[in-house]
């Protein structure tokens, strides 16, 4: 049974190793990379199916019973996060085959990319706090290298800020783990959930909870800890920023959700109350940041922050519906955000820039791109019947149900502001004529057939997913409901981890 859990980690790790072995053999490396991403997708689908059918899946690595060894565990939340990682990983990998320049490919893009996927998948599946730290490090080092890959000046500037602030997070995380271990003598998350209530010094537990909140808060880019994100996301290659935008911060959000439903639930009024305030401020500052930008990827980067706020809001409400909303938002956001970055890459190809002032004319030149932009953009702004609408609806309803009017009002207003900054991209890049004349804007027909397949193909699939989630929301809602139920109930997870004996 454990193979379902291990495979999604081992496949990208092996792919990365193979890609390193094929250094300087670009065609072979590309083939391995694409096949590896495809295989990874298959393993993630298998895991999802397994969890959907049989419930929470846990595997004790090295057959050491929990809490002595390391447990890998997939509940519905983990499984769906892994699945979405597989989907995005494969799609963006195909996109990158056409998007990456030779220089970047020759300098290790493919191995680094798969190391990143390894780290992300590992973080979603592990049931051990220190092991989570290790996967965070894998992610951090791979993402740092990917950010810097190509060594453009602007990239290095972003990469250094990214790494420096994330290292601060790493330090906080480590201190938090160390002190928590000092209190409980264990690192297994399920075991922690069992032991922590017996710690008499409640104040220390809450303090350590705050430390975790800060460590993961930096990772998920919440207010006032998000500095690294807008500093770096607009600099690397499009495929790189797309996969970052989709997955990286969401690992932080996942970690927050996991720890603040499983482990730190003794003082919800304080911890989750603080999270709610953070959520509101994150939404507002993020969306205002976006309103101030004039470059597509910068606008989109600030939007990530704003939408992280919505996810944290769902966690902070700490009701079944709130967590459903958070899970729904996570999945929706990953698809839509990745897709928008991919579209931004196409916009640059067709118009020559991502600076809104310098581009235009896409509405006339490229009807297909109009559709492919509008779907994720409107979904992001919460326009029905696309995925983002349901995510927002659930969250607003969840907050109204328990009388959290301030956060509901914030969510509503930020929704309108989101629409405002998305229409800015629309107005400038699509409706406005190109400042250098209509001939400067190409259509999708001007791309080669291979480019169309590799670049447009993934975008179309992601857009189709967005529509599917919007029109057939019930299955996704069921999934989110199961995930939310497991998170709030806690015992199924704990039993799955602690009860399993090799």
């Amino acid at each position: 049974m454990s193979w379902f859990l291990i495979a999604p980690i081992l496949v990208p790790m092996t792919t990365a190793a193979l890609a390193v072995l094929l250094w300087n053999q670009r065609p072979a490396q590309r083939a391995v990379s694409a096949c590896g991403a495809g295989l990874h997708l298959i393993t993630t689908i298998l895991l999802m199916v397994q969890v959907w059918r049989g419930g929470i899946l846990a595997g004790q690595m090295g057959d050491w019973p929990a809490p002595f060894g390391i447990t890998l565990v997939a509940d519905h939340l983990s499984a769906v996060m892994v699945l979405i990682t597989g989907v995005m990983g494969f799609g963006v990998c195909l996109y990158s085959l056409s998007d990456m320049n030779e220089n970047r490919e020759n300098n290790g893009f493919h191995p680094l990319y798969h190391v990143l996927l390894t780290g992300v998948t590992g973080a979603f599946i592990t049931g051990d706090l220190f092991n989570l730290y290790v996967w965070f490090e894998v992610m951090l080092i791979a993402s740092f290298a990917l950010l810097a890959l190509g060594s453009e000046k602007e990239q290095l500037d972003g990469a250094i800020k990214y790494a420096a602030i994330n290292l601060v997070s790493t330090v906080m995380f480590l201190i938090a783990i160390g002190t928590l271990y000092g209190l409980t003598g264990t690192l297994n998350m399920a075991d922690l959930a069992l032991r922590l209530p017996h710690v008499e010094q409640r104040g220390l537990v809450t303090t350590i909870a705050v430390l975790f909140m800060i460590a993961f808060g930096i990772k998920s880019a919440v207010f006032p800890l998000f500095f690294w994100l807008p500093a770096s996301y607009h600099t690397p290659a499009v495929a790189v920023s797309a996969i970052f935008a989709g997955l990286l911060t969401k690992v932080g959000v996942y970690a927050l959700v996991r720890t603040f439903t499983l482990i730190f639930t003794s003082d919800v009024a304080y911890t989750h109350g603080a999270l709610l305030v953070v959520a509101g401020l994150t939404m507002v500052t993020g969306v205002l940041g976006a309103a101030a930008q004039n470059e597509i990827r910068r606008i989109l980067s600030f939007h990530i922050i704003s939408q992280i706020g919505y996810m944290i809001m769902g966690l902070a409400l700490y009701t079944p519906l709130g967590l459903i909303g958070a899970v729904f938002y996570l999945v929706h956001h990953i698809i839509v955000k990745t897709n928008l970055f991919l579209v931004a890459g196409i916009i640059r190809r067709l118009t020559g820039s991502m600076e809104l002032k310098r581009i235009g004319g896409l509405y006339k030149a490229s009807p297909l791109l109009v559709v492919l932009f509008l779907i994720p953009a409107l979904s992001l702004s919460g326009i029905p019947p696309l995925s983002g609408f349901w995510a927002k609806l659930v969250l607003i309803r969840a907050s109204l149900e328990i009388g959290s009017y301030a956060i509901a009002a914030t969510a509503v207003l930020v929704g309108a502001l989101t629409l405002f900054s998305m229409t800015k991209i629309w107005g400038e890049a699509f409706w406005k004529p190109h400042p250098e004349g209509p001939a400067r804007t190409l259509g999708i027909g001007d791309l080669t057939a291979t480019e169309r397949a590799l670049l447009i193909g993934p975008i179309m699939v992601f857009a189709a997913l967005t529509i599917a989630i919007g029109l057939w929301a019930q299955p996704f809602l069921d999934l989110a409901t199961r995930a939310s139920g497991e998170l709030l109930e806690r015992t199924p997870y704990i039993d799955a981890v602690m009860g399993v004996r090799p």
Partner: protein
Amino acid sequence: MLSAILGIFAWAVIAPIVARRWPRHAGWVLAIPPAFLTVWFASFVPGIAAGEAVREVTPWIPGLGVNLSFYLDGLSVTFALMICGIGALIVVYSGGYLRGDAMLPRFFLFILAFMGSMLGVVLADNVIALIVFWELTSVTSFLLIGYLHDSPQSRRSALQALLVTSLGGLIMMAGLILLGIVGGGFELSELADRGGFLREHPYYTAILFLILAGAFTKSAQFPFHFWLPNAMDAPTPVSAYLHSATMVKAGIYLMARLAPTLGGTEAWTLTLVTVGSITAVLGAVLAVRQTDLKRILAYTTITALGQLTMLIGIGGTYALETFTVYLLAHACYKGALFMGVGAVDHETGTRQVGELGGLLRLMPVTAAAIGLAALSNAGLPPFLGFIGKEFMYSSTLGLAEDGGMPALGWVVTAAMVVSNALMMVTAGLVFIKPFLGARTETPKAAHEAPIGLWLGPIVLAAAGLGLGVFHGELERLLVAPVAASLAGRPMEVHIYLWGGLTPPLWLSVATVALGIVLYLGWPRVKAGFDGVAAALRYDSDRGWDGFLKGLVKLAAAQTRVIQSGYLRHYVMFTITFTTVAIAATMVAFDALTAPSLMELDAPYTAWALALIVLTATAAAVLATSRLVAILSLGVVGVVIALIFLLYGAPDVAITQFMVETLVVIIVALVLARLPRLTAFARPNRRSALRDAVISIAFGAVVTALMLSVIDLPIPLDLSDFFASRSLTEGFGRNVVNVILVDFRAVDTLGEVLVVTTAGLGAFSLLKARPKRARRESPEDADATSSQQDGKPSVIEQNGDRP
């Protein structure tokens, strides 16, 4: 009904193909389904008039209580008839009006998609479904207003309409969700039965105003009216259809639909009547100030919307009758006027009142259509508009005499007389000025429009006349059912053209007289209003610009503060925030259980080592050369290794020794290639002090936390397990090693990956440097680290600041 809506959406998707295939007749072909639906909906009318209502449910997202449920009663069937009937005429009209336009296929897509969305709004019984369609009308409207997207003015108007209506829509969504939560369900037909309970509920006022925010923005009520005239930048068919006949009435529809649920309270009546009346007068006043025919019509639409809102607010038999009559009358004459004016614009090249004249003989059919519609607009018998006006006075007088609000009733009555008189003026401006009087030179030589352009206006204008004449049938088939929908129970209604010499008739006469006087003195009236406007210096439209500009400015200011572009600021904020958060939590929750330093039980060697660590740290901070700094840090590392040794962890100590040695050597080697530190590092005293305080505070907080934790006993069952199983099951005497390679081997696997990737990353970073970067001077390279105080380097300015 679901299939009707989905059918229209499907047809919208096919429309561009049809429009490309048969560019000349696309309008006629594409109008067939809406025309068919008009007939189909009409077939329900007799049944509904007999008291039946049709409800149809398809589950959509049962988990959220979202159904695609539809409800057809008097109110919704009337709206559906307007949407499909006028829609069919508009589609035909568009084919002629935009013939040959390259974007016409997309236009058909959007306008048909709008039609589907609008049908959804008026048919939906589930509030969430209603919101879905409501937002879709906003989006399709956005795409249609921006049809002439090359013009910045169009883009601005489209954005304005979208933002105003969707902000309202979002607020309304919150209100409707709250309504559903309080009312225990999301079906409007069920909520209507719980009206009594809901009106008594403490959340009633909140729900009401949240929902009204949506209705008022959508239906351009004061103070949100400003977007509607700007929306006239759209091609005329769009203005006629969305911004006069249908979409702007979505808010009216919603208020009417919720009347049995939320209506009848004092808050409801006061708000709707006041806002509606202000909107009506304001629209009429602004209308006579215009000289562009289309803008005149736009403002009179605002008047009509205000009057409709007011009528819903008044409630009662007269008002509800009037509502229906006036709703239909307005849809007919305003649709006809818009399309007619569009035809004039199309054939003459101008819509300015002063530039047009004597078109009667050149465009007789268009003239007939506009003339009939204008008479209805002016409220003259026997047109439907006349009945609407008569009954409007009955309603407001009713409010004054026995509605319990005499003062409001009289004021509103006066307001209606004024706005109706001004409406007459506009009717005159639209018909008499362009068609009668002396001929003028127009940019294009005027001649009669083709059939596609005059069919719609003439049909609608004739309908306004026909419905007025055959008002008996209208009363039975539509007015009574609609009134019943609004009242929430069957209603006895009676409408008539001649009711005797009643007060409403005298008011009508007064209105006509006032209207004629005002029309004759129009230039002076206009000048007078212009003067008032200039004195008031109030302009919501400019207010909007100011609002947006302010928003962007605020956003930019905020972002400049938060995202300064300096890494040191980011790190400083992060550390400060962490310190404060941890310290506050520790104090608030009494977590500081650490013994004071004096009580710590530690050997003297440990104290000595700690002192060395502190000294070396200080040396590192104060160092002016990198080499000294890195050596000092090396000392720190080595001493920490000694502490490990002191407390019995030789494995860890050895690892630490090795790492420290390597780090110092490697960094020292790298340093040799970097420029001198002193060029940048000249921190001023204040920032140095600030940094010192933050660092020391952070260190102190972490130390306090550590000491508090260490003070508590640590459960050792895991350690015991490792110690006992290490040899027997892990086959190694060195427990640390067995933990690394067996118990927690997954960690080690991950760390191996980290180290490998770091090497890989460093390799590619060095190798991949573009050639031009390699040639740059060392100073530039150093600046990329951006950690120095002093002026921002070039890179930082290009960095992440907005």
